[in-house]
């Protein structure tokens, strides 16, 4: 049992890392696209409060462009931690999705604390002997319970909404329900583990066994074994689904919505990239683009006169 459980966890950890790196690379390797920003752009500093941009200045290209990472970080953290956009635009959904996401964040915190506790254990610190070990142990318990309970409430709310809400029903796929039920079972097993082992000692010892490759260790609590198995699988599964939006959001915000980097006239910082994409071959078949099916690049297509193409047809 012990080796199988450990193997599962190791494999799932590897799948998670590989899938996240793959997803990141997939987006990162995409070519430059046309500008498509959407205001407010968070790093516009004071102007961000009303959605303004550097285009509000006469001769904007001659002025020093300031990128305020402070306002960007502030907005990012509000978005990530509190799901600010959902709260503003869909408060009914927020009541369900906020506990769900916060539950997950708490469980990530819980995992970090388990790792901290496991390392303290490796260093010989007694987790129940008062002092630092106890602080970590108590925080672990709080994060574990909070994560499990909030996550379960959120997941139940989201399942009900997906199944019964008029606006969502038609768009709900079997995989959406499966994903939520999958996560719900992890939250519930985590809660069950905590119910019989409030300081999650079994889980901490398991994390310690993962770090020390003690592959024969098996927690005595069956709920903990179930939680470990399912949580491992969830970790591997999430980046393979549309739930990988935690990676993609980086691109939708930084590369699209907030990407207002100008190709400043006179400086042309993107000249090389533009030259590269304009050499891509284009195979669009409409008669105003390529009536004869000849090979051509974007640069060629963009400088052709479609009237002459008509004649050459």
């Amino acid at each position: 049992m012990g080796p199988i459980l450990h193997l599962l966890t190791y494999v799932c950890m590897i799948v998670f890392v590989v899938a996240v790196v793959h997803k990141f690379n997939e987006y990162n390797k995409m070519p430059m696209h046309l500008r498509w920003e959407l205001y407010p752009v968070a790093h516009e500093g004071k102007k961000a409060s009303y959605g303004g941009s550097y285009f509000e200045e006469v001769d904007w290209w001659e002025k020093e462009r300031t990128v305020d990472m402070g306002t960007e970080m502030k907005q990012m953290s509000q978005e990530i931690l509190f799901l600010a956009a959902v709260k503003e635009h869909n408060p009914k959904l927020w009541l369900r999705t906020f506990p769900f996401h916060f539950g997950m964040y708490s469980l990530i915190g819980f995992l970090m604390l388990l790792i901290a506790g496991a390392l303290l254990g490796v260093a010989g610190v007694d987790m129940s002997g008062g002092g630092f070990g106890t602080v970590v142990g108590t925080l672990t318990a709080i994060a574990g319970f909070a994560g499990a309970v909030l996550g379960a409430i959120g997941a139940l709310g989201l399942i009900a909404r997906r199944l019964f809400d008029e606006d969502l029903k038609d768009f709900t796929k079997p995989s959406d329900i499966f994903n939520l039920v999958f996560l719900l079972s992890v939250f519930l097993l985590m809660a069950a583990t905590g119910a019989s082992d409030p300081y999650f000692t079994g889980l901490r010892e398991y994390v310690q066994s993962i770090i020390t490759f003690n592959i024969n260790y098996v927690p005595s609590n069956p709920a903990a074994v179930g939680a470990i198995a399912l949580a491992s699988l969830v970790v591997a599964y999430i980046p393979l689904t549309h739930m990988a939006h935690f990676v993609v959001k980086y691109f939708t915000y930084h590369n699209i919505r907030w990407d207002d980097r100008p190709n400043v006239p006179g400086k042309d910082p993107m000249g090389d990239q533009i030259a590269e994409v304009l050499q891509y071959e284009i195979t669009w078949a409409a008669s105003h683009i390529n009536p004869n099916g000849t090979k051509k690049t974007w640069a060629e297509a963009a400088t052709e006169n479609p009237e002459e193409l008509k004649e050459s047809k």
Partner: protein
Amino acid sequence: MAKPKDTKLSLNDFGKPCDRLAHMNPENLMPMSRPLDCREPEWSPLKEETKEKYMASLDDTLVLNIPRPQSKREEQELVRKFLSGVEKLFQKNNNWTFLQPLVSTVEHCAKCQTCSDSCHIYESSGKHDMYRPTYRSEIFRRIYQDYIHPSGRYHKTWKNGGEIKLSWLTVARLGELSYRCNICRRCAQSCPIGADNSVVAREIRKVFSQELGIHTVELHDNGSMLQLKVGYSTGMNPEIVKDNIEFIDEDMSEKTGMKLETPWDKKGADILLIHNAGEIMAWPENIGAFTAIFQSAGLNWTMSSEALGYDNINYGLFYDDVQFARVVIKHFQCAQKLGVRKIVFGECGHATKAAMIIADRILTGDLNIPRESCFPLLKQLVEGGSLKLDPSSNNFPVTLHDPCNLVRLMGIVQPQRDVIKKICPKFREMTPHGVNNYCCGGGSGFAIHSGHNFEEWRFKISGRKKLSQILNAFSDCIEPETKKYVCAPCSNCKGQIRDILGHYNLWNDAGITYGGLVELIVNAMTDVKPNYIDWDEII
């Protein structure tokens, strides 16, 4: 409150053969305030011969005019070409322009529907399912995932909740549905993931144009093609344009008492001013006002008389990346020849965004000429004291429409407000405004589409929210005796607002008219004849 039954439409019904898939029942439309707090009339029906000739079974109107296939082979050909186009959208060589925004939206939308309530078209229709921002995207997504994505055939039901029946009708309806979105991107603003359903609408339009050669006559044949052929999308060549502007100079000289003279082709000028040349025919007083302001302020400016150099329109922005690039390159070649220091765009949102933002990653080297919107410059002139102004000339209620392209999509929010606040003592904002504004309903080229009964759709559905905002902004003075002005500093928006005010007879019934920003400035200038905005001329 339960949704009326006739606002519901399942995704699985999209390919269902029937005469009309969705009807926007006038009973369900978003209610309006005084004086439009009454029921809308029924839709004018599409003609029988239209229905025979084109796929006209989406809703109550028609704009794309996709010919009905005449044989099984033609049906299959339509589907084949469509799939081939969709495949190209996901290839970096064919679609580097929008690959990342498209893939992120297709793969990661959570279908949470947070965006639905942000859409004025969805809200105005009485929340009809078909007009949700996500509806067309989901049909597109399922087609992509089922028929293009390598793993599609294995997990149709699991991942997509059911297979979309792919027929010529599904394809043609999806094409038509891509023209029920203003591409205003208000929905994208509310998306927590950063997905953008407007991109999907635009990419579908691109497949139809770039692969199938199907586009609206207004945007393509009479739009970008004509512009590339003769220089301007109404067919006016450089000579005719120069004559017309000369005539405007004379007319507006009389109106202002100034001796107005548009400078042409001045090499090395500080500013090349490019108008939306639609103003020449429709709103000559806007062109005249720019001339009056630039001349009074002593600016070193010019217009170009070269084909395309006098017309900033770029309809490719709405449906075709290649046409977009062709037009923008011509615009900048004109500026390059004159060797101007910078280009300033007149009051036109889509053209300003096209040239400043979208073209920013197309133009390099000598073609990458500095360019800006006219609003910051106007603010500088108004605040800097180079114009003598008396705000009391504008002592009537004024509200400001925020053109999506300039405001939400470029972040030019404050300069036009600063101008208006300085010269219009009775200015009031719409609710909401700035980057949260609603589209006028003419966005993405709709303002120039009126075929069949599409104009009705612009009035009843896409323009409804804006009109409601206008009425609400003037609710304290809605009686026709108080003359009111909607400042719409964008040609497309102005056209839509003109049409919608006219359709509902709101000049006579509520005393509401419209115009640009520069007309208000000239109306407040003390060294020109009074009444540049002439209420008696409004009919």
